[in-house]
């Protein structure tokens, strides 16, 4: 090896990555910052679609505004609806009611889903409409430079709270579980294998399914908390995460600052579009 770094010539013929068939390869590499967790979420999602052998043509992706909304649009090779800030669940509800044969997937961030579109989230979960929502939680509004979001932990400095965040974060997964969703779980980008299995489960289950994915933002969030490497975040997730069954035996003081990961809820409530169609048919006949 030379001491001087060199720029390599034409790369040798590589065996293609088996998940590249799901991506628009002409626009790779992605626009995400180095070490951004959004790519890991895209990777796990593509792997889950591969394992379930779903045709991406039978899926519709609805996204809002923000870094995480770039995960399916433009990278995933499927139909995407890139909507206004905070409204992906509202648009997804319309898509699902008109086309119940399609799998509707919403991938957006914490600022989009829990902050600006918080009301849509609660009521879609209450209706239990058959859509899959992946909330990529990077604890800040990363695209605009790291402003405080409803999911930012207490006492953490951000661009708009330089003297530490005085607000307590919203526990979105617990909120959705209480609102009546059929499947709720929380994972991090460190737990890639359980995350991938959880995405499979969420795509299969009928009714509202919600996964909160803690994802690292080493650039916008990391600069304020001095965690500038993606590995710092993944080590933090590894050390601070507690499984659901263990968290049940722990006190509130012990759980302070911990991340509860795992499946929070799985149940079989009746689904909104099925109920709506049944009512429609009854009155058409009558």
């Amino acid at each position, binding site marked *: *090896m*030379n*001491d001087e*770094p*060199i*720029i*390599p010539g034409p*790369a040798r013929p*590589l*065996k*293609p*990555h*088996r*998940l*590249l068939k799901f*991506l628009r390869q002409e626009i*790779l*590499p*992605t626009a*995400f910052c*180095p*070490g*951004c*967790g*959004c*790519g*890991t979420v*895209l*990777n*796990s999602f593509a*792997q889950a679609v591969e394992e379930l052998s779903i045709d991406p043509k039978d899926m519709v992706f609805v996204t809002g505004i923000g870094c995480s909304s770039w995960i399916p649009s433009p990278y995933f090779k499927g139909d995407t609806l890139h909507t206004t800030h905070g409204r992906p669940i509202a648009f997804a509800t319309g898509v699902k009611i008109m086309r119940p044969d399609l799998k509707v997937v919403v991938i957006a961030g914490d600022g989009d889903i829990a902050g600006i579109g918080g009301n849509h989230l609660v009521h879609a979960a209450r209706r239990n409409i058959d859509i899959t929502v992946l909330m990529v939680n990077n604890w800040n509004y990363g695209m605009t430079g790291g402003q405080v979001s409803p999911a930012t932990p207490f006492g953490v400095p951000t661009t708009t709270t330089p003297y530490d965040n005085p607000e307590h974060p919203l526990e979105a997964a617990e909120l959705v579980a209480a609102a009546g969703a059929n499947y709720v779980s929380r994972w991090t*980008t460190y737990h*890639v*294998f359980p995350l*991938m299995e959880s995405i499979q489960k969420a795509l299969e289950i009928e009714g509202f399914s919600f996964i909160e994915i803690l994802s690292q933002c*080493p650039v916008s969030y990391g600069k304020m908390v001095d965690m500038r*490497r*993606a*590995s710092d975040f*993944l*080590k933090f997730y590894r050390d601070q995460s507690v499984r659901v069954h263990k968290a049940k035996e722990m006190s509130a003081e012990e759980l302070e600052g911990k991340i509860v990961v795992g499946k929070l809820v799985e149940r079989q409530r009746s689904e909104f579009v099925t109920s709506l169609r049944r009512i429609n048919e009854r009155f058409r006949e009558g």
Partner: protein
Amino acid sequence: MPSQDARVQQMIEINEELCKGCDICIDFCPLQVLAISEIINRKGYYPPKVVDEEKCIGCRLCELVCPEFAITICNE
């Protein structure tokens, strides 16, 4: 547990041009198969290189954790 000889030899393929040098694969490989290479790619990042392919057991953690689809395991 399969013996050392019965193990299928794994082949790690790294697409240096997609890599953004976040080093997650290097830090989280359970058997330290990867290390930072001395070359830089066209975007100015140092991609990983394989230092000990014999140790790889094909757990595919690097493949799934990579945010850039730059690393894959081929074992056929």
